């Protein structure tokens, strides 16, 4: 009796499992679109550049925070901030270029640009490093200067 019950339960389990596995074919018996989504070279490049952008912006925030806590000296900060900003700007510019062909499409509902990255350690005010004696004071257009214009935000048309 118990053996028969066990057999029946085993058979029911097997049928249920097979039905679950076969469900995609039962639900769409003759589906025309049976291809897995394959990202093209453009999307792969976009992912790569997005990562570059995020990496550069994240590094900038980390640098700001480390500078604020005293882990990075003023001189080190000035040396590092310029290249990082250029990297971020370059990534943003390339992302813009990639998005541009799609801009010729009918205009979408305008998206409200959200701050990126969201307020983080880097939402601290831009520090004003004190130059060491004898060091030149960075000018307002110096990319390493704290007075450098803020980075453009993603999410909408931008000019660099």
């Amino acid at each position: 009796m118990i053996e028969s019950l066990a057999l029946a339960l085993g058979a029911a389990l097997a049928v249920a499992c097979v039905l679950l596995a076969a469900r995609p074919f039962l639900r769409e018996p003759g589906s025309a679109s049976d291809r897995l989504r394959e990202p093209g070279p453009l999307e792969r490049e976009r992912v790569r550049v997005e990562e570059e952008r995020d990496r550069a912006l994240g590094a900038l925030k980390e640098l700001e925070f480390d500078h604020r806590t005293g882990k990075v000296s003023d001189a080190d900060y000035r040396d590092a901030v310029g290249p990082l900003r250029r990297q971020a700007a370059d990534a943003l510019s390339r992302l813009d270029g990639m998005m541009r062909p799609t801009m010729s499409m009918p205009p979408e509902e305008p998206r409200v640009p959200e701050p990126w990255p969201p307020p983080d350690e880097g939402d601290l005010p831009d520090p004003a490093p004190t130059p060491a004696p004898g060091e030149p004071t960075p000018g307002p257009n110096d990319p390493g200067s704290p007075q450098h214009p803020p980075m453009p935000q993603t999410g909408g048309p931008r000019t660099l």
Partner: protein
Amino acid sequence: MALLGRAALIVALGLLAYAALAGALAAFRGRRRLAESARNALVAALGATAVASLVLLGALAAKDFTFTYVAEHTSRELPLGYTLAAFWSGQEGSLLLWLLILLGLGVSAVLLNGRLTRDVLPWVVPILAGVATFFAVLLVFVATPFATQAAPLDGLGLNPSLQNPYMLAHPPLLYLGYVGLTVPFAFAMAALASRRTDERWIVATRRWTLAAWAFLGIAILVGAKWAYEEVGWGGWYAWDPVENAALMPWLVATAYLHSVMVQEKKDMLRVWNAILVAGAFVLSLFGTFLTRSGILSSIHSFTQSSIGPWFLGFITLVIAASTALILWRLPLLRSRTRLESLVSREAAFLYNNLFLIAFALTILWGVLYPIVSEAVRGVTVTVGAPYYDFFAIAFGLPIVLLMGLGPLIAWRRASLRALGASVLWPALAALVAGVGLLALGAGSSRAGLIGYTFAAFVLAAIVHEFARGTRARRATGSATWLGAFTSLVGRNRRRYGGYVVHAAIVLLLVGAVGIGGFSSSRETRLEPGESVTVAGYTLTLLGSDQRRAANSQELRARLAVERDGERLGTISPGKNRYFAEEQTSNEVAIRSDPLRGEDLFVIADQFRGQTVFLQVIVNPLVNLIWLAGLVFLAGSLVTLWPDAREQQRLARRFAERDSALARA
């Protein structure tokens, strides 16, 4: 019901084989419905395995001795908790638990990462299913827990060493750690196979890796606590091969958790990270093989079996396949950036990785050498504690030093002047601690003194980091210091949770050095009324008692304890004689002093009439090891806690991508 258990395992095996083959075909040919079918088969296999597990649990609870497994691992008098824990006490049950956890974690990872790693998942499913198929094959053809027999009057019982509360938790935690490492392995290999080597697989598996690593770490400590109380030699870690088998993947996973941050922030070490993920997984298989194959003699190995060759074959296959895949995709893994300076956070991570891996490899060699020696030369050799202790100091001290230095160094590059300013206060604290300890007489153990000085440096560095981070946040608008602190931790949980884990490692170091370098021990025989004094504790034998417990006869020596003239109560070390198992176990008595962090540890080696042969040990600071476990858990939880900010960032990125795809 054994028939239902067997049927469920056969169904699971069929589904897993299908998921592996059909999934690989679907991923290779780009067939959507076939990929979905393979994924569903994986989910169904989890259901079938759960049914098989319930059948075994039911048989254990009912003590159905027609199940050979139940008869071999329980007895009528075994308490219910240990009876249910017998699920993972034997080889067949352990393998079933492996499969159940693997499918539970694998299915959860697949279902929860559907959006983030959509392109990678078609390859993840066959890889997970392939690993699970191996375990299902073992369970169906080699080591089935559902073999039946004519029911004997009573079972053989459970090994007395396993009848300990910590053993209820240790194996499942260990398996959650071992098996959890399958998830990052599957995603990493799938990313390579699908040529999606961007950071998505890292983001998708970050928490799974952290969780597996945390489980493994906690399991090692729970196992150490079990060994401390149950094996009863007065120590907590004996460099036993099975203990080492769990430590090795933990060390490699620790290296990975550090180096993956370098990949995320600097796009470096991509090949290295792929190797570490594969290495951690292979070592977790190797650990299971060591524990379950019976290839070596260990206090933790409770099995002699024939599954060894199967495991060796599978481990070889995994090494060959992952090596081939990494080599095949090498061009995709080349980093575009270089190390900018040897004095930088990423360089510190690199040094820490080298020491961690070197330590793991020396342990591996220590474990393998006796096996190789016996196989090749026919000579049985043992690699003892001095070998491991030497390398633990040689590699461990630099690792501890880097734990303190790393957080003080900035990413990319740090000038020596900035580094000097950061290091100044922690170094001064370490110096003061070292000189103070020397003055207090801690110089009797040079390694201990250096260890404590380094520990002081790391702790001071952690406090320094928290303090200046909180100050910076307070300066930028937080209303209160507490608000600044919580905001600091909440905005970078991985970093500050990591520091808490570092503090746990320091506590562990302090406890381990305490027990290793400064413990006191004495062996003696006492007649009733006689006393012995060790490290300020005086023990007086009051007499011996016997009593019958549920499944054993207990023999205890009653000892009155005093310290500096103050009565601290009595303790009762002794032995248990288990009826069904026909085995005797040592039951040590431990009196912990939470304020001092030390233990009075007493072993009753022999009873001859009224005479008791005792070993009395005083282990200073040993309780910090167990406290380290709690701090480690707290730090791991901080790092694991979901970060809403990151979720928003990823959601935004996918929204951008989906929108671009829709337009295209």
